[in-house]
């Protein structure tokens, strides 16, 4: 029972991170109908930015936790958005209007490029940082097993809830959100109403990257280590989350993220920690086979 509770906490934390990354996949798919396979690596880049800024702040002797967290988030979001914009601009926009497969291949290329760039410049070894947020609350102890809610977990869940609320508001209530949704439904018509569709797509990429950046910072705080390969696995898991929730659906991405996090945590605790990735990828296969539109997605009708 105690183990289950602990895994529930761990799973929700992990799920929140997957959800944040999954939104980037789902938004990009919604607006231009492609899977941005470089999105996981955008997240990885942001984790490296976080490590760099944390180290810099420590050198400058800034020790206040809230201040350094805020600064790191700010810098990471800023730089990662620029990465998101650049990736779209250089790798996808020139291919718009060509076959559906071309930007997909370009995305895989971009993913490999980002991984190698980070590997070359930052080294292939795991990079640790000094613990940022230590400690936690001991909830209960059963038979010598203590259920612990770490402060970093509280932080991750709270930040995620706040971001998702803000994000939902952005999409449903603001001019940018309406623009984004209209592009999703009919790009040509949106342009004919005077909206700059290319700019809307750029902003979508930047927003997706900004959310991934927050996820990257959170994971850095949570685990304290990063390497150039974390983007691949996290990316595919978040992609699975987006597919499970229904690709193109924002609430779906959040729900899918949470479910994948929980499934992974419980699988690791009760079945096999070594094979926890198998759980996620089995889900990907099952969903694609039996319910390709996902939990909250609507079946796509092929337009002619």
């Amino acid at each position, binding site marked *: 029972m105690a183990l289950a509770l602990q895994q529930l906490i761990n799973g929700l934390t992990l799920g929140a991170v997957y959800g944040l990354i999954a939104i980037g996949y789902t938004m990009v798919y919604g607006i231009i109908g492609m899977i941005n396979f470089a999105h996981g690596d955008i997240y990885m880049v942001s984790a490296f930015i976080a490590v760099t800024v944390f180290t810099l702040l420590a050198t400058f002797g800034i020790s206040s936790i809230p201040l350094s967290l805020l600064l790191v988030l700010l810098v990471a979001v800023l730089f990662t958005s620029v990465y998101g914009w650049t990736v779209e601009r250089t790798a996808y926009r020139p291919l718009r209007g060509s076959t559906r497969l071309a930007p997909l291949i370009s995305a895989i290329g971009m993913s490999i490029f980002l991984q190698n760039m980070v590997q070359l410049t930052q080294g292939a070894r795991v990079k640790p940082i000094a613990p940022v947020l230590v400690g936690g609350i001991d909830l209960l102890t059963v038979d010598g097993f203590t259920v612990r809610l770490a402060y970093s977990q509280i932080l991750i869940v709270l930040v995620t809830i706040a971001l998702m609320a803000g994000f939902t508001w952005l999409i449903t209530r603001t001019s940018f959100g309406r*623009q984004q949704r*209209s592009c999703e*439904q009919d790009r040509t018509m949106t342009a*004919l*109403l*005077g*909206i700059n569709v290319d700019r809307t797509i750029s902003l979508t990429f930047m927003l997706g990257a900004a959310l991934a950046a927050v996820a990257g910072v959170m994971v850095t705080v949570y685990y304290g280590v990063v390497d150039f390969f974390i983007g691949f696995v996290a990316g595919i898991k978040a992609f699975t989350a987006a597919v499970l929730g229904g690709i193109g659906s924002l609430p779906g991405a959040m729900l899918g993220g949470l479910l994948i996090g929980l499934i992974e945590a419980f699988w690791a605790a009760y079945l096999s920690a070594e094979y926890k990735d198998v759980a996620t990828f089995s889900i990907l296969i099952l969903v694609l086979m039996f319910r390709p539109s996902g939990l909250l997605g609507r079946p796509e009708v092929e337009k002619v």
Partner: protein
Amino acid sequence: MSAAPQPLLSVERLTMRFGGLMAIDDLSLDVAARQITGVIGPNGAGKTTFFNCLTGFYKPTLGSVRLNHPQRGPMRLEELASHQVARTARVVRTFQNIRLFPKMTVLENLIVAQHNALQHASRFSLAGLFGLPGYRRAETAATEKAVGWLQRLNLIDKADTAAGELPYGMQRRIEIARALCVDPLLLCLDEPAAGLNPRESAELNELLKHLARDEGIAILLIEHDMSVVMNVSDHICVLNYGRKIAEGTPAAIQRDPNVIKAYLGEEDADEELHPEAVQ
């Protein structure tokens, strides 16, 4: 008013070729402000291609489309990007097959069309989100304008319904209302009466006349329904195989031998051209 006002839109020697097919062949046409200009012709005459050339879909092979913008002066439509046709030149079109945003509410559809005003009020789309007063005012103004058109077009009780769920005739009106929210100088309507019942089509006639006379919007109208075209148009241009074969007032067009010949290949040519003969 001056005696011979400058036309709002001057199409000069417009040619659109797709491989060996001449979709539009050397078309010249003036569209006057505050008037309804009908564009008719048998199927495949190049009417929709003409619209596509106006709104940045196609780059014409030859020729030019000049818009005399009352504030900004002359501009060449064929050189503008798709979104600038609406934003800068204020030329909007509707489609033969309706293109609303089906999953957005009717009101949202109309507010999206006013995005540029909102963008302007927020300076940059993300900066204005945090409740800047200017942005709030612009948002209220956009909603008011949308509500105004919805009331005029008898759609106000559907404002919060998803556009895709409404019946066809209503969607046609919403598409026109949305185009009107761009504050167009020139409104290009591609078969707005298609699929409307006689009552709806009579209402459409009144609306179009009102827009041209009272709102001062120039209208380019592609329509097969002769009861609409002959009734509302001030001026008609007839296309056949991409060429202009006649131009003039509705009365003149109905008597024009070239037009009658072009339509003879079709069934009921007389009825189509003389709606009053049937009624």
